[in-house]
């Protein structure tokens, strides 16, 4: 396995509009079963990448923001692929482990469904299959042959579209003998599905070990921060702060 890569992502939330294009692209690429109404009601909807919306603004006594001084803040949240992932050491069967490319990997056929990993994940990005995923038979036709369907009892999560990374490595490094870089990832449609779809270029993916990659450069932006950094999980997903010129007056 090529170990010279360290895959990571930068999420510039000042660009994010909350449009949900990434969410749907992920559902399509990764064979995530349709979240039916009942799954929303039972809080078991699966979204490997989700858009969280927070209300922000002046608050009154209940802690509820008041109209009209109210703002909505959007943030895409996906598996943070932590270097010190709290989900990894608690798995009794090593179904989730850290590979040498910075990915937090889930091996479905090892998973026995203890859900310890989901319990330990502070980002709420791991999803347990409480049911076998169901599609009407005709919709099987659009399922991605590169991605396993997860059965009942299995934990699943964002993989950074590892199937695309592997294809890219195989074609560019294995077959062509070239070095994989941003341009080649883009040209082959091998960026993660969410990154490809994003209309505002909020999501930037690439090799953190490559000093020339966009993700390396952007991760040094003065606005950078990591989610729940104080927990020491050391994520490979770096966020860039939202910019709000009015913020100082109303923080």
């Amino acid at each position, binding site marked *: *396995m090529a170990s010279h890569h360290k895959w990571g992502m930068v999420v*510039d939330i*000042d*660009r994010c*509009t909350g*449009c*949900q*294009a990434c969410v749907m*692209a992920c559902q*399509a690429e990764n064979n995530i079963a349709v979240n*039916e109404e009942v799954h*929303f*009601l039972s809080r078991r*909807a699966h979204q490997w990448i989700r*858009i*969280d*919306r*927070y*209300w*922000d603004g002046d608050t009154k006594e209940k802690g509820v*923001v*008041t109209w*009209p*001084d*109210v703002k909505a803040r*959007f943030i895409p*949240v996906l598996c943070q692929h932590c270097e010190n992932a709290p989900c990894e050491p608690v798995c009794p069967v090593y179904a989730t482990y850290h590979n040498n490319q910075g990915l937090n*990997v889930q091996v*479905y056929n090892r998973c026995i469904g203890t859900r310890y990993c989901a319990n330990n994940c502070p980002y709420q990005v791991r999803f347990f299959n409480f049911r076998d995923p169901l599609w009407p038979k*005709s*919709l099987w*036709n*659009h399922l991605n*042959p*590169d*991605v*396993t369907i997860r059965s009942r009892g299995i934990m699943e999560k964002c993989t950074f579209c590892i*199937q695309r990374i592997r294809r890219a*490595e*195989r074609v560019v490094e*294995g077959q062509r*003998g070239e070095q994989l870089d941003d341009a080649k990832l*883009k040209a082959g*449609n091998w960026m993660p*599905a969410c990154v*490809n*779809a*994003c*209309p*505002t*270029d909020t999501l930037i993916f690439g090799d953190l070990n490559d000093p020339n990659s966009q993700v390396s450069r952007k991760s040094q932006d003065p606005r950078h921060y990591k*989610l729940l950094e104080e927990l020491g999980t050391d994520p490979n997903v770096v966020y860039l*702060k*939202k*910019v*709000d*010129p*009015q*913020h100082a*007056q109303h923080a």
Partner: protein
Amino acid sequence: MKVSRRDFLKLAGLSTVGAVACNIFPDREFQEQSPLRIPEDMVTGVDNWYATTARGGIETEGLVIRVMEGRAKKVEGNPLFPTNQGAHSMRSEALLQELYHPDRIPSPMRRVGARGSGQWEPITWDDALNTLRDRLSGVSNRNQMLMVTNSMRGSMANLAQSFAQAYGGRSAALDLMHETVAAQVVRDLFGQDRMPVFDIRNSEYVLSFGADFLATWGSPIQFSKGYGHFRQGEGRSRGTLVHVDPRFSLTAANADQWVPIRPGHEGRLALSIAHVIISEGLGSAAAVNAMTGGNRNVLEAYAPERISHELNIPLIHGKSPVDMIKEIAHDLASHGPRSIAIGGGSAGAHTNGYFNLAAIYALNFLVGSVGQQGGVILNPPAPTPEFGAFLNPTTVRDWQGIRNDIAGGAVRLVMVRGADPVHSLAALDFAGAINRDDVFVVSFATVPNDTSHMADLILPERAALEDWGSDVPNIGPGFQVVGIQQPVVNPLPEYDPMGFGDVLLRMAAELGIANKAPLNHVTFADVLKDHARGLQALNRGSVRNASFDAFWNRLLQQGGWWDEGSRGAAPPAAPRLADIVAMARDAVISGPTGGNTFNLLAFPHISLTDGRGANLPWLQSTPDPITSVAWTTWVELNTDTADLLDLKEGDYVNIEGPNGRSFTARVYHHPAAPKDMISVPMGQGHRNAGQYAAGRGANVLEILGLPVEERTGALAWSSTRVRLTPAGRNDSIPKFEGIVPAFQLSEHEAIVKVTNEG
């Protein structure tokens, strides 16, 4: 062990490959086959990518589709296509589900039960086409045929127009999302038939009124592409977005400043901003002179101090409405040509919508941004008239006439394609109009909809990814673009659809009206090729080749043709403000008055739009970005108002409109909803549109009193007042967010960290 011939060949094939592979494959290949690798790597097979275009809901997007073993697997944006530049919306993604929809109509069907009973028998295409031909030739007067379509563009529009003309029938296009009022204002102020493009990418200051351009207005993916750069593009400072809208739309949510305003008063605010620019000498002197005719007092009545009290703009962060107006005027003018005023959506959807939008678009002239980089860039017309064909949507005022004609027996044959008038025109009771024994309804549909349910004959149409077509985006990138749609897969063997174009061509031949182009072709693909020859003859743009076959192949590979050297016309003379002032009038908001009445702000759903995506499960399951509600209709009610009315989230309320009709939906507590208004998304309330849409939510269009914009006759969907009464029951709302509302904590603990330094 019994080894079949097939197994033997497989084993033999494997061993041969293995033997060869030992010699030529690099070591890495073998490492990748290791069982320690996760299984995603184990797929064999070759994928092909085909470029196409589709209008999945709002505006055309150039797409590339991944096809494996004859099945479409994934939609991606076409990086070459100039409008969406590689990105794509969830509406395009869901084209896969239209293709493989479990409710797809497999074969032509004839009604056997009572109309609307849902009883059908499958028939052959020969039977179906003979029936259609007999009906087309059987009407006593050709004017008794009405063809209802979506607002088609490009080659299909050219064909449909030609067919209707040659046959002698009527045609009407249905698209409630179309910006009829904005299009008319653009025609009158900019002298253009196509909408201009707002160069948000290079702009420094964007002031939008009602146009939810990041979600559903205009060309959202193109604008979003520009918006990303506008915010954090390299080598530029961060742009400022101010959004004026009674409703807290997605664009309002992303604005640096949201300015809530009294519905229908957007034009007055625009003139007030213009007043400040003129009276304080902020705008371009030449433009000010031209627009005022030297009379600097033309907008005196719109001085902020005089009219701010009418606008109902609240104190925002302690800033008074007068200060707010002045600040906007200063900011807009200080960025000069790199500032943009956009108007549309709810600002145009009032009885005085034309006045509102004319006043808004005039601001661009005042600050000198028309035709400038970072401003409003005019789009050139389509490169050829065939590709430029456009079925202009019929206005609601005209639909009322058409509906009466049908109900009165003046129409005997209705052909419906790409539209669902029974759902969209529910307030007109279109279903009631076609429910006559002497009206024969033919529906072209891929998946059942409310109109096909009422049809006599259903002709299964090819899905977008199985069909040919072309499109010229209404909001182009500032130069000429033609998107080419090609079939990326064949229909599944169990389906037997036919393209709408192919049916029209066959009918034209059988009716003896196929004597000239485009009707003299056998297939729609031939029509498209013929139109492509016109492009080839131009010998310019992104595809050029002396050989047509080579030109055609390149056109398909690239997903279209564009010419970055083509440009729109020079900007016309600035409008006179006195003319716009003369048009000023109040919005007439009709509906019940008194207690518990609210202004109703209907809005297009981000994924279902006006309802055309409701049968696709991915689009149903897309949470609304702000409320996170999916699969149903909700009523956005201000949190404080809801507390006053003692309405909890999930309480059902009855919403009664001016026509006496009502619907029931659940309340969502919304901290950013104005206190005297409710907002309800369009898109739901289908009765017979397949398993994912039928019987779900409510159709807000049904209760509108159908007020129309005075000058254009377009639906004034913002000019409605409704009565809200609790229905006395409660149910959980299907939504993605947690049960406890999510609020930002202190800066230290915040998930979304905010800075004020761009």
